[in-house]
């Protein structure tokens, strides 16, 4: 997910965070307009429920608005935002959040997206298949396919090495593929 636009995006993120820290009300409008939907999508995937995602989104934004003034590294706005959303979700979905660390292995190269890359799959079927995956797999796939965070940022967010992120992502894709196959979603 590394692109040439990343440094520009990082500078733009830092500028937006600093404008918020200065207290510019217009900057908060931009912040919310830019990040409301990605954060909501992430939370919706974790919660598997629109109403719960709405509540989580509200709690997340309250914490963001109250906390952005103290953000020490404004250039890390994205992982900070998703970190807050994640903590809010974990507080609510703690019973669902079973960490699966025992069989984690670190890998260097991310294998091809064999679950969906070469096949036309109904988007609604992906949505349904994702919903039955464990929350940790849903989270991993959502973070990756939102394409808002780099692998390094996802690793920092989840407090694990990049190799483990790749390994978990690979496993999550396999589980998604199995779920899709079970539903006969491939055409």
């Amino acid at each position, binding site marked *: 997910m590394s692109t040439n636009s990343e440094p520009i995006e990082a500078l733009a993120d830092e500028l937006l965070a600093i*404008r918020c820290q200065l207290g510019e009300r217009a900057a908060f409008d931009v912040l919310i307009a830019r990040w409301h939907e990605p954060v909501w*999508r992430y939370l919706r995937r974790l919660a598997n429920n629109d109403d719960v995602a709405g509540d989580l989104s509200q709690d997340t934004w309250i914490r963001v608005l*109250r906390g952005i003034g103290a953000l020490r590294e404004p250039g890390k706005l994205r992982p900070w935002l998703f970190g807050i959303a994640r903590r809010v979700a974990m507080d609510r979905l703690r019973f669902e959040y079973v960490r699966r660390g025992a069989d984690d292995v670190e890998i260097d190269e991310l294998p091809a997206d064999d679950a969906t890359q070469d096949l036309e799959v109904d988007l609604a079927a992906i949505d349904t298949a994702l919903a039955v995956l464990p929350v940790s797999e849903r989270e991993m796939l959502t973070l990756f396919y939102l394409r808002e965070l780099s692998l390094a940022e996802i690793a920092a967010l989840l407090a694990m090495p990049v190799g483990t992120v790749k390994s978990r992502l690979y496993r999550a894709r396999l589980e998604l593929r199995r779920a899709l196959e079970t539903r006969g979603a491939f055409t």
Partner: protein
Amino acid sequence: MNTPTNMQTGSLEYIRRLAQGELSIKARIGYVSLLLVAAAMTAVVLSLWLTEPVLPARTQAAFGVMSLIGGAWVSFALWALTARRPLFARDAVIAGTLAVVFTSVFVAGALGAVIVSGAAAAFGALGTGVVMLGIAVWNLVSASRRHAALAARRRELESALRTG
């Protein structure tokens, strides 16, 4: 999976409305004013209480209760300004200026009371006022420095983004 619409909890419009309330400058200045008034009143009550040599038990109890109430309001305002309505850099400069003006007036009043009455309580209030003024000035200087640093970084970033 569609994002919520209209005013559903978590919708864009809902979060915008939520932000309006959260970012209200009136609420922030209100808490700053509460902090200043409560601190000044507590300082006066404590000065009277601690400097009067002989006070009936009931009066002492009344001063004690008033001091506790004042301290509770000071604590509440401090909590609100750190947890619920933290000050952004511009707000902090405005709040710092307000605090310096307010505590200067308080010190001037206490100084007047010292000159006119020479009462021990007036000296106590003057001493407390000078400490409060010192804290207010220190806060204003810190807030101004932080604001200047953020504004400078903002200019750097805008320049970098313009030049690509």
